[in-house]
């Protein structure tokens, strides 16, 4: 199982998914209309490391996080 978390202002409960890569995750999230804008402006971290492409293999126990636009300070 891969756990997917939505950080900050994204109002969505965490998911537990049987997926093996980020392409599968993208397909699942694209079906959720409320996620459309967030998918465009959010960054993705796998096990707390930001990734810059979908070319990432996921294994059991991995954690994926979506990070929407930030504004600290």
């Amino acid at each position, binding site marked *: 199982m891969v756990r997917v978390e939505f950080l900050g*202002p994204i109002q969505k409960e965490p998911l537990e998914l049987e997926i093996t890569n980020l392409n599968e995750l993208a397909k699942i999230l694209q079906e959720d209309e409320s996620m459309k804008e967030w998918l465009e*402006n959010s960054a993705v971290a796998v096990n707390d490391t930001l990734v810059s492409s979908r070319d990432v293999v996921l294994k059991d126990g991995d954690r994926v996080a979506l990070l*929407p636009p930030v*504004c600290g300070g």
Partner: protein
Amino acid sequence: MLYLYDGALDVPEILKEWYEQEAKSNYGAYIPFVGTVRSEDNIEGLSFDIYEPILNSWFEAWQKKAEAKGAVIKMAHSRGDVMLHESSYIAAVFSPKRRVALEFIDEFVEDFKASAPIWKYDLKGGKRVYALDRSTAIKGSGILK
């Protein structure tokens, strides 16, 4: 070092602690940047969410960059609500010479604004409203769209 606090920062106390921590380190320049909540758009204050694991690794990467130049960085940030004219953010650079500190504080604060995993909300009428229009998409955003 990175320090997170619930609510507003005690700015004089933090600036004093940091100054005293490095009093004998032989740094010639100490430049803090203090961010304070401004009154605008009728907000009552701001509120912050922080994702600590990525904030920590982002900060450690900067600390290494600073060390390579003989400098050190400290940062404090608020979690939760911070009201008007209270402060939510302090970053500081210590370095032997002034040029490194002057350049580092600028680069650090700008990258903080663009990359640190912190989300800001306006407090209006008791509600928490995500400040999307003032927020910046992290580099590499959109790969799942």
